[in-house]
């Protein structure tokens, strides 16, 4: 697995490339945590268009980040779920707490709008 990233105001946009399973979950957690801590970012947009595989351990790693950000009212927003990925997110219940957006741009807009609305 490889992650490429982009920072927009207080948002980390992370694009996951390859497989997110028990072999790469630790790398995912370390990358996201250190990037967001270092730059004091609040929200995480995950672009999963190039993600080739995810299982419950990968979902667990994403849920872990969610719990972490939640404490400071940070959000995780999802982009680019293919049908199978969408199904595992849905079965796991994660789609109830993280919303999907049609593009990174739309997701960024949603974060900014929520802020103006005063919800940080």
């Amino acid at each position, binding site marked *: 697995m490889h992650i490429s990233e982009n920072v927009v105001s207080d948002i980390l946009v992370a694009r996951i490339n390859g*497989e997110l*399973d*028990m*072999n790469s979950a630790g790398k995912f957690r370390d990358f996201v945590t250190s990037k967001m801590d270092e730059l004091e970012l609040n929200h995480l947009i995950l672009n999963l268009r190039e993600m080739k*595989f995810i*299982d*419950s*351990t990968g*979902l*667990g790693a994403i*849920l*872990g980040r969610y719990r972490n950000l939640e404490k400071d009212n940070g959000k995780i927003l999802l982009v680019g779920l293919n*049908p*199978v990925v969408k199904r*595992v997110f849905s*079965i*796991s219940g994660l789609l109830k707490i993280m919303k999907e957006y049609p593009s990174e741009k739309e997701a960024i807009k949603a974060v900014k709008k929520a802020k103006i609305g005063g919800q940080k």
Partner: protein
Amino acid sequence: MNNWAKMELISKSKNVGLARISVVTFAAELNFNLSELEEIKVAVSEAVTNCVIHAYPFNEGKIMIEMKEIDQALFIKIEDTGVGIEDIDAVLEPSYSTREGHMGLGLAFIDSFMDDFTLLSEAGEGTTIEMYKKPERIKKRQQDNSNG
């Protein structure tokens, strides 16, 4: 002879991908469509990850994987000789996990993505999971034949 293959791995996390790819390559010769193959990958990943995390928590052990073609369907058996399971009924509950930070979703995914599965275990002896899936195309064909 119906096709058949066996594999033996060490419970290292990097071998979860090897198990997944080997089984899905075997399965690709049956009549599964792409999303069924993805489902098989998830099921194998969950079962092998369980061996790495739960069966051998303190040291590395062996994982045995058997794949078989039976009546145009796929049969997979994944076996460890690790710690085993105390209470099978409990672990079959969705969201139940004996490990903190784990979602307890592995067996639920296997249940969703395969037609059938059986979990056999004895504490201290190890665990065996058997899974079965028939391609939708074959099911349809067999149904059409029996209807007409």
